[in-house]
């Protein structure tokens, strides 16, 4: 389906992702600079160590009975000192780098979440929760692992390589040039490989995201699957996404993992070339054997770290692909920012008007056509109609979860697009058909909308919502933990909790979208009584199927296929013997 594409729209180049990664690291540039200095120091120390060892051995080289133990001890002590210092440095480098990389990961995770908070509701209607989560868990994991281990390796290696190249140039220019012949080959090769592996690593991430999305969806509906004995079918379908994930990994990594050995081979060939050229030079009298030997010693020092980089470069590439996926989420179009001159909706009267509103979720498929309605302050407006008539859509527009395509929604006379979202949404309390609780205590769940709510207030709200006796039966009362997918708390009880939440969140406008559909009727009646107190003097929008609950509405809008087909009070509409009348009579059939 077109609407439900994966989040990625625009293919980004790896270089862009790389630059943005750097900007994340940039925050820690002082620490990274420190790490670099420490790396240099620790490298120098680890080079000094063997040279002291050499001196110590030289001091012992005098032979039987002639060893100068004072000298040996002196150098051995220095050597030991170097190693101890070097180890201390390594520990502090590791600690600092771990902190930096995990904090970068933490920062990215936070950025993704903060971004989600700024995205329009429509985004969540279009994208799989599992896929979004996979970016935060899997993709950022890949990045964080890469940062914590690979950056140190690269820094250390760079230091060594620079030193070794310097020494090589110093010993013999022609040999050094021979040795460096392999460098362009390695560079060309790795660049080519980056281009070759990049799409595969990306595919790997995408497949993981898809698998995660599938798992999330299926396990959410686990009970449904069990009731229809469809486990085998679902397992078979999982086989497919799982296979894709496994193949994606294999295709990417089996290619990526060849980079290390190949660079190793290029290096070996370089050595062979050096030996070869060295031998020829020697024969021509341009160099001594000793020089060749020490040259080779340094060229090994040079190739070691290059090998190491080559072995982790595939991790680097996979981290870049993961980063691209994270950044593409961060680049999603946000909820349109509030207008610069947006006003705060204050001293809310509760006068709401929809003026010739047209709207559809998919462009080209209009759900509401030229809809107009007006709710005066303190009035109760009921919206009824067959399912699918567009009732919930009206709520989406009133709260500005979506923007109208034509016409306007007005609150207290101002177009809601000229108001800050926070003040607009803050003017409503809302109870939705889809109940939502989060992992936390019952107290936290009820007090959710209101900062610093007291226990008294919470209990009062719970009593009004008729959930108090139930809460009191729990061993920990209001401190009992509940969770969204934890069983044993029924949908009806969740709904009562959300009603209590709305009761606590005292506003001048109220939206009830099938607020009591899962509650039994006698409880519902009592809640209604409490609500009537709550709704007193408030503008109130009610969607309900049980028409008994809306009989005393000041205005009933009867919606069919996105049009208001009738409006009036309960009495007027019954007298008209039209659409509403038929709906109403159906209750007693």
């Amino acid at each position: 389906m077109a609407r439900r594409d994966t989040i990625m729209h625009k293919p980004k180049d790896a270089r862009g992702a790389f630059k943005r990664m750097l900007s994340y690291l940039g925050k820690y540039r002082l620490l990274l600079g420190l790490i670099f200095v420490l790396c240099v120091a620790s490298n120098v120390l680890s080079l000094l160590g063997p040279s002291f060892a050499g001196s110590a051995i030289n001091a012992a080289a005098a032979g039987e009975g002639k060893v100068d133990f004072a000298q040996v001890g002196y150098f051995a002590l220095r050597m030991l000192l170097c190693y101890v210092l070097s180890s201390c440095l390594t520990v502090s480098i590791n600690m600092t780098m771990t902190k930096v990389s995990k904090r970068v990961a933490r920062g990215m995770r936070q950025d993704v979440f903060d971004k989600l908070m700024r995205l329009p509701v429509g985004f969540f209607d279009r994208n799989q929760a599992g896929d979004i989560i996979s970016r935060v868990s899997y993709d950022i994991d890949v990045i964080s692992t890469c940062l914590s281990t690979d950056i140190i390796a690269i820094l250390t290696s760079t230091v060594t390589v620079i030193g070794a190249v310097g020494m090589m140039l110093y010993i013999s220019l022609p040999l050094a040039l021979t040795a460096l012949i392999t460098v362009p080959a390695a560079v060309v090769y790795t660049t080519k490989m980056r281009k070759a592996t990049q799409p595969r690593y990306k595919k790997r991430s995408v497949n993981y995201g898809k698998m995660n999305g599938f798992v999330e969806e299926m396990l959410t509906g686990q009970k449904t699957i069990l009731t229809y004995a469809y486990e085998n079918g679902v397992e078979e379908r999982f086989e497919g996404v799982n296979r894709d994930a496994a193949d994606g990994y294999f295709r990417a990594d089996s290619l990526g993992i060849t980079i290390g050995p190949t660079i190793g081979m290029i290096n070996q060939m370089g050595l062979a070339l050096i030996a070869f050229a060295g031998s020829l030079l020697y024969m021509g009298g341009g160099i001594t054997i000793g020089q060749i030997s020490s040259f080779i010693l340094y060229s090994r020092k040079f190739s070691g770290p290059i090998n190491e980089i080559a072995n982790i470069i595939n991790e680097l590439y996979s981290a870049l692909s993961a980063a691209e996926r994270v950044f593409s989420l961060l680049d999603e179009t946000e909820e349109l920012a509030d207008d610069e001159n947006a006003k705060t909706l204050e001293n809310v009267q509760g006068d709401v008007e929809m003026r010739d509103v047209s709207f559809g979720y998919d462009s080209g498929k209009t759900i509401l056509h030229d809809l107009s309605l007006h709710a005066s302050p303190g009035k109760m407006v009921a919206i009824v109609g067959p399912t699918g008539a567009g009732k919930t859509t009206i709520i989406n527009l009133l709260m500005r979860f979506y923007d109208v395509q034509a016409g306007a929604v007005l609150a207290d006379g101002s177009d809601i697009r000229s108001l800050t979202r926070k003040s607009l949404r803050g003017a409503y309390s809302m109870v939705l058909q889809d109940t939502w609780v989060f992992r936390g205590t019952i107290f936290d769940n009820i007090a959710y909308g209101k900062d610093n709510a007291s226990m008294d207030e919470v209990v009062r709200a719970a009593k009004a919502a008729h959930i108090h006796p139930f809460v009191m039966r729990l061993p920990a009362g209001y401190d009992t933990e509940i969770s969204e997918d934890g069983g044993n708390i029924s949908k009806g009880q969740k709904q009562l909790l959300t009603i209590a939440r709305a009761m606590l969140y005292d506003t001048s406008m109220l939206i009830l979208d099938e607020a009591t559909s899962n509650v039994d009727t006698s409880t519902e009646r009592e809640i209604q009584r409490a609500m009537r107190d709550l709704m007193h003097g408030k503008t109130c929008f009610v969607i309900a199927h049980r028409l008994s609950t809306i009989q005393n509405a000041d205005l009933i809008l009867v919606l069919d296929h996105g049009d208001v087909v009738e409006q009036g009070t309960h009495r007027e509409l019954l007298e008209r013997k039209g659409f509403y009348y038929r709906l109403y009579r159906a209750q007693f059939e």
Partner: protein
Amino acid sequence: MHFLLRYLKPYRWVILVSMLIKLCATLAELLAPYVLEYLIDTVAPTGEVGRVFFWGSAMILLAACQWGLNVYANRRSVRVASECAYRIRRDLFRASLNLSGEQMDRFGLPSIISRMTSDTYNLQGFIQSSQTMGIRAPFMLFGGILVTLSMDRALALILCVMAPVMIVLVVFISWKGIPLYDRVQRGMDDIVRVMRENITGIRVVKALSREKHEKERYADVNNEAAKRDIRASIIMALPGPLVTLMLNVGLTLIVLLGAHRVNDGLTKPGVILAFLTYFNMILMGVMGLNRIFMMLSKANASAKRISAVIDERDDLARIGEDEAAHTDQTGFLVFDHVSFSYQADETEKSGAGFAGASRQKALTDIHFSVPKGASLGIIGATGSGKSTIVNLLMRFYDPQDGHVFVDGRDVRTYDKDELHRRFGVVLQTDTIFSDTVRGNIAFGRDVTEDDIQNAAKDAMAKDFIEALDDGYDHKAAIQGSNFSGGQRQRLMIARALAANPEILILDDASSALDYRTDANLRRAIDENHGGTTLVVIAQRVSSIMGCSEILVLDEGRVIGQGTHESLLKTCPVYRDIYTVQMGEA
């Protein structure tokens, strides 16, 4: 570790061969410097260009061999890792799908999801790198020690003493790391949980303008997870430098001891120098082993989390005919003095899920029987135990007292799928999946197009489905979010009807339907599914008043039982509900 071995076992030969190949590659790698030395020290001074060419080519050949072997072995290891991960995920998914309600509550969905992705990813990484690095490191360590032993036993003894100490240290710390990584993974669970909560509740969060609060809430779990990760990583990064230091101390000892031995004429200075070279090899070996063990501890933590789910015993196993209970009651659906409460023991310990309420009794002494083709209505206050009856009937849970029978057989004697296939069910917790409308109705069963269309018609879903551009091929979004609440319910009802089930259960299935649609639905079920045994749970009296038997529940007890007419006379609560709903007309 056991768990991992179980999955590696089928590949033991493949792995063995890879390791042998890797061994050859390592040998080639170690051989290269000798050829080089030979070329420079022996061949070059002779001045024979031909021989220089020959040995130079030998080196290149050796490099090519090494490359081929390494690439081949590495690819094999990636294959094994991807296949193992595939199998682990398959088994984990199957196990998760078949968890009982209680088990699911205990693990929690976010935790299962992060086990599925993050933990299997850790295992996959470990399986792969342990194969690519697993042979080289020990080879270098032990090879290095062997060579030094052959040069000077006394000096090498120092290494021989240190090696086990270092290995013990590495193993010990990596073992200590398992609980640390377990905490890291649990931190990840929390991140996933808060993300999920916000994605599903985004409307509420936005409506209440709680974005800032949610950011802070997320920041809390995010910071905590990062803190745990940093802690684990720092501790696990300790053995590396520590081991290096120990080896270097050993080296210093060798130099000192060596000097004495040189003085005593027992060894030559050149030997000590050679020790320096081999020493580097040993160091690399130890570091490699250290890396593997550190990865192992992370993998072990993940393996434990995964096996906790896979090895979860089936707490609703099928029992034999001889253990089955019997009942005197006749009837198609029978509850024989059933009492039930949601268990709390383990839930409370783990602190997950809904610990408190569970202890309360959900059902007490429920006793009824429904003849084949008859209908049962259940009504009662929120939380009175209506849905629990369905949970027991479908055997999502087993009752503590009494027994449940379907078609004269104890439900525990049924194969799970065999039992479930007799039902068509709409549960409160049911979902629409991201599939076509047709796929959602057929739901993997062997139903004909006619069945689907008839079911849609009976479920009052035909009109809106056919109004869609692509009709039955229209794709539903995840959780059916592109349909309204009422449309979703009708699709679920169609799904329940499609296979013409023997038993139809509608648990609050029409709460989002308007009365007219609801009434039409009931009529259609009466007319076209007359032989079906029907169980209807509802808040609306109108939905159940036509049932041949009605149960009125209150706090898990039956407080009224009979037909609509008799209940109006005998059950004040029922009468009350009825008057509330109908009286105000």
